[in-house]
């Protein structure tokens, strides 16, 4: 593989793996605090799947990087500016509605993206996508159901879900941004132009949000800076302080 492709591939893998790592971490913050036992189980299961996918994406990233690092090194020893996740997944949990809305908005993109990646020209990418897409299909089913249930529930649950949607919607657009990395990946058949997912996404999300009796905000304004690392939110640094403290406090240990 040419050097330039390798750098682009690495960036692409970090984007995939950082999304699952950071979202998995956020979801795991719920442990033992959710509204009903079934949700404790479901949230732990979602987090577990996402962390499992992280191991695959970042493991492959480490291999492509070729500096002898592990997925753990990548997860635990980078600072915020090295992370390539979209801003959406680092947004705080908020209430349960905000957490599930964030999950749904991401799951919808994730499931479509993984569907495309299953046809990747890169065998490892295709394999990871194949495994992950089964898990994510279930995540999407569940988060969509919950968004519909709470949107079309009581007056309070409806207004909380609408507030969650209003808060998170400006973070949706970043998932469809393209840059040189995406161009290189698309050209190599490894991935696709993210912009090409938007139509399917809008159709899916409109359907579910309409079932949920929720109104998509009119503004198409999109925050960005996560997937390039140029400007994350202030939230990410705090998340990393918690996540990374132990391996940083005791460097070089086996756990």
């Amino acid at each position, binding site marked *: 593989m040419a050097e330039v492709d390798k750098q682009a591939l690495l960036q692409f893998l970090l984007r995939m793996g950082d999304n699952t*790592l950071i979202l998995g*971490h956020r979801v*795991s*913050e719920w*442990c*033992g*605090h*959710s*509204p*009903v*036992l*079934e*949700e*404790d*189980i479901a949230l*732990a*299961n979602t*987090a*577990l799947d996402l*962390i*499992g996918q*992280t*191991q695959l994406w*970042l493991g492959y990233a480490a291999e492509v990087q070729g500096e002898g690092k592990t*997925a*753990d090194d990548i*997860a*635990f020893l980078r600072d915020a500016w090295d992370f390539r996740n979209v801003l959406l997944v680092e947004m705080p949990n908020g*209430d*349960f*509605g905000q957490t599930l809305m964030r999950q749904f908005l991401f799951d919808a993109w994730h499931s479509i993206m993984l569907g495309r990646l299953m046809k990747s020209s890169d065998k490892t990418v295709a394999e990871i996508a194949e495994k992950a897409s089964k898990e994510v299909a279930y995540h999407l089913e569940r988060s969509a159901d*919950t968004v*519909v*249930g*709470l949107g*079309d*529930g*009581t007056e*309070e*649950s*409806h207004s*909380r879900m609408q507030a969650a949607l209003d808060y998170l919607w400006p973070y949706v657009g970043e998932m469809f941004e393209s840059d040189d990395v995406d161009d290189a990946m698309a050209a190599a058949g490894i991935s696709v132009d993210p912009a090409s997912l938007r139509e399917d996404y809008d159709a899916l999300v409109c359907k579910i949000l309409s079932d949920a009796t929720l109104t998509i905000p009119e503004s198409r304004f999109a925050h960005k800076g996560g997937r390039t690392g140029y400007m994350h939110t202030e939230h990410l640094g705090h998340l990393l302080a*918690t*996540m990374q*403290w*132990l*391996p940083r406090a*005791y460097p*070089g*240990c*086996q*756990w």
Partner: protein
Amino acid sequence: MTDQEREFQDKIDRDIKIEPKDWMPDDYRATLIRQIGQHAHSEIVGQLPEGNWITRAPTLERKAILLAKVQDEAGHGLYLYCAAETLGVTRDEITEMLLDGRMKYSSIFNYPTLNWADIGAVGWLVDGAAIMNQVPLQRTSYGPYSRAMIRICKEESFHQRQGYDAIRKMAEGSPEQKKMAQDALNRLWFPSLMMFGPSDKDSVHSAQSMAWKIKINTNDELRQKFVDQTVPQIEFLGLDLPDPGIKWNEERGHYDYTDPDWSEFFNVIKGNGPCNVDRLAARNKAWDDGEWVRDGLLEHARKKAARKHAAE
């Protein structure tokens, strides 16, 4: 003893399971509800000390293992609440009894998890002690309870092995890691011994529970078994024994050990453990904050049913 009671006891003696629709003495039912409910609550509250380290797990693998374990525990809670419901209480009813302090959970979860080795030690010692209690309960007289225990025991012993593996990594690691392992062992040893409850000599309920096969072994038997199993593991790990009183007793064929400080145990039960207040506050907050979610989903289900009805 009435005929009904005699017939009931006879079934138990012949190892025939009691099922939800069978007649049973009120005390049997009440004791089971208390015991199963307490066990279910323990699974739920037990998520908190482990959840305390999920966001700080040192590797992706350890984080995944811990998430899987916590997920299993919530699942165990679910089986057990279902078993309790077959006795005529709802999950919401006994949940509220947990939240307002009428029902208890295992006191071990009122101790904090203070370093990463605690997570290993919880799996190794706490799950280890729990299994010691639970394995015999697979043969308990109440059918749904027995079946729940069979499923639970399988997963618990998996957790225990993972916990032992985690603390072994610490014991074999850097000097600081080894110190963490020792610290965790020292802090959790006596609370683990307390998990079997006070000596049966001091327990009023034990005889009846054993006759009913709700309780299979005495507390002291199980505690001894736990000590006998665990001491060689401590030695294998190369850790110091957490109790200078531990010594092999050739005559008894068991390890001698120091009895836990039962005044501490009763103090923790009373609410004065290091974490009682925070644990209950966390569960109450989860419940209160989640009210709108439960209400919303219920209302949606009603609307959906109504729409379906109207369409028919």
